[in-house]
């Protein structure tokens, strides 16, 4: 990929595609790329006369549609009013389970991460959870997470939510909830499917010919570099500045 700006623009464009068709997406407070993807979908839908998209940014005053405190996003998800959400993970395994707690034996983990946040709950309730983790390495993508903060599939209970896709700096995977595993959908420009295999610690399905992740088209780029950058600057000023510096 040609540079940092282009790398980010590709991710934002992929995210907007993954969100296509949703009405309401919630985004974590420190997630500028997912937020930008959501804003891009909103702008596109508005341009094309498609149904409006609501983007809730947790912790933001400007993009906060909630008035019932910290519990509301969780209640809202339980009511089926949140269509998409993003989760990451210090570790993500081939079954789609994520670990936000740490590595090694619990509780005195060798490495400690912040904690599970709302993942154990939202993974069950939000239909389209997009796993977004930029670092693509065997350290992150492990055969089996050391601690399951949130489980991807639980046949013992009815659930509407779970992983929809996994997006990294190198590739895009789909998640098959029936099978409980990932399938490589496309590889970002500059990488080969063998790079993905080498950098992924879990097994996954791969098509005979792996497509390349499409780049944003010129119209999308002009939205991204104009309107979306302005919208981002309100909520993620540091990120917006760094996008411009990377340009």
């Amino acid at each position, binding site marked *: 990929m040609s540079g940092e700006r282009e790398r980010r623009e590709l991710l934002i464009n992929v995210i907007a595609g993954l969100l296509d068709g949703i009405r309401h997406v919630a985004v974590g*407070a*420190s997630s500028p790329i997912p937020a930008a993807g959501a804003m891009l979908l909103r702008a596109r839908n508005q341009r094309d006369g498609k149904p409006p998209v609501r983007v809730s940014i947790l*912790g933001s*005053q400007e993009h906060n549609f*909630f*008035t*019932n*405190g*910290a*519990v509301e996003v*969780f209640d809202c998800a*339980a009511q089926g009013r949140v269509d998409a959400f993003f989760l990451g993970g210090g570790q993500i395994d081939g079954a789609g*389970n994520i670990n*936000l*707690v*740490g590595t090694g034996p*619990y*509780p*005195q*983990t*060798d490495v*400690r*991460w*912040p*904690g*599970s*946040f*709302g*993942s*154990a*709950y*939202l*993974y*069950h*309730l939000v239909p389209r959870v997009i796993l977004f983790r930029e670092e693509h390495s065997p350290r992150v993508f492990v055969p089996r997470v050391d*601690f*399951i*903060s*949130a*489980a991807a*599939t*639980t046949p*013992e*209970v*009815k*659930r509407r*939510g779970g992983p929809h896709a996994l997006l990294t700096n190198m590739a895009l995977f789909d998640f098959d909830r029936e099978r409980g595993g990932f399938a490589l959908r496309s590889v970002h420009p500059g990488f080969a499917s063998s790079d993905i295999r080498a950098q992924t610690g879990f097994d996954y399905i791969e098509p005979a010919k792996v497509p390349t992740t499409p780049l944003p088209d010129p119209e999308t780029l002009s939205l991204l570099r104009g309107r979306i950058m302005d919208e981002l600057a309100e909520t993620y000023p*540091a990120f917006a500045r760094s996008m411009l510096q990377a340009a």
Partner: protein
Amino acid sequence: MTEIVSLEALAADVRPSQSLAIPVTGVSMAATAALIEAGIRDIRLICVPISSMQADLLIGAGAVGAIETSAVSLGEAGGAPRFNAAVRAGSFALRDSTCPAILAGLLAAQKGVPFMPIAGIVGSDLLKVRPDWKVIDSPVGEPGKVVVVPAIAPDIALFHAPEADRAGNIRIGRLRELAAMAYAAKQTFVTVERIVDRNLMETEESAAAVLPSLYVDKVAVAPRGAWPLPLPGEYPGDDVEVARYAAMARSEEGFRAYLSGFLSQRKQVA
């Protein structure tokens, strides 16, 4: 009835081994400094539902005997260094949770019931490390497993808000988790930017933003009391300061140096 007291008097009424509920927005950093100054020890922190610099400072200062939280993180400034170090060292009893479970536990206490059912969670290892959480068969409706979590009734809820009136009504705006903490807690201590002469309950619209004095035991004035964290409608967070903390708190010595500066800065404001 609500007492209006000094920041020191408010902090002095938090006793060792009490459980202290703290929010993620509307954080009383002023009372945090006063607690550390007063040499508080062995408090049992309940983060509603996560914490950032407040928990990390209290942990680094050796004030925390136990913590229940869904996360401790400095947000864009990265992981919480003193929390992470203390977890690795096993310095306190750790109860990992997930955000809506902490809120559900408080809700159970609000409603005087021993437990609250909660959606999701099944499959998470949290169920293994939280033997106080149970998976039951739903007693009503279609058969199915449901997780239940026990009530959380903190000894003290502590937070910071823009305003109190003379009667002790607190304007919390839409940060209704602050009210949820107060409903569940045995006592509620609040620091505020200012005390106003008007009655905050006067109109239907203004009352909607208020936690009534009925739930408020002590109020102390602490201008810029959330600094360096944000207070919605009043001031943004001081991200540079939080990043400075994040860098310094990586080492024990750096943390000590930061803490000493922080305590004197908070004293100058007060």
